[in-house]
């Protein structure tokens, strides 16, 4: 199962998809694309603590994708 974790003010929201289920993949991808359009950043991560990689396109085979709001210098 793939997992999309979207950061928000009340903690992250989880969207799950089965890579073999087209509808679920499409729904997750739509959320992903909507957030990327709002300048969110997306990182594909692994559970074992290995460094994540930044992605710009939805990967249905990703185990976990974390989406963060944009960052700014202070």
């Amino acid at each position, binding site marked *: 199962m793939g997992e999309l974790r979207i*950061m928000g003010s009340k903690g*992250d929201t989880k969207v799950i998809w089965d890579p073999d289920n087209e509808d679920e993949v499409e729904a997750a991808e739509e959320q992903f694309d909507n957030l990327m359009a709002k300048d969110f950043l997306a*990182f594909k991560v692994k*559970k074992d*603590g290995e460094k994540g990689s*930044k992605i710009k396109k939805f990967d249905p085979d990703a185990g976990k994708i*974390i989406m963060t709001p944009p960052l*700014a210098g202070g």
Partner: protein
Amino acid sequence: MATYYYADTGTSSGSNGFTTSETAGTTCNCTITWGIWNTDTVISDNEINGAPIYVPQGIDRQEQKRYEKLKKEKADAEQKAKELLLDLIGEKELEIYNKTGRLFVHGKQYDYIVPKEGLIQRIEKDKVTDLCIHLRDRHGFPETDNVISLKLLAEADEKQFNSIANQHHPRSRPEELPECACMGARG
């Protein structure tokens, strides 16, 4: 040293942040929730981490209930953020993070100390530089989500990370760095 929490939203989002101080003062600025300035304070029935919360005197019960609800939401959100961090760094390192409030991040070129509050430190061979970079609306998100975001970007795209950050106060690297979670780990 005790920490005193003062109800101080001070933000347009009404996210109900707190200002903290190590001295017990008598006034607080409450701009959004109550529109009261520099008013005398009383101690709320509730507390954060064992420390009292000072709220404006005379605030009505309904407002206080709303205030307490917002406080709980904030604590719940932070707990969720820590669960996400647990997924990334594991239980042992999370314990250290809970104790120190700091995460050590290994970039390809440099290392970074990312604290829950305050400036990030970029650690080079013989130099330390303060970096100011954070979620655009950082007060609208749990503190630990801010830390996670910085960790992910520093690891995955260090060039972008450093190009966004404002840099301050470069200085010689101290002999000893403060304790942080993930200091020994290298992904």
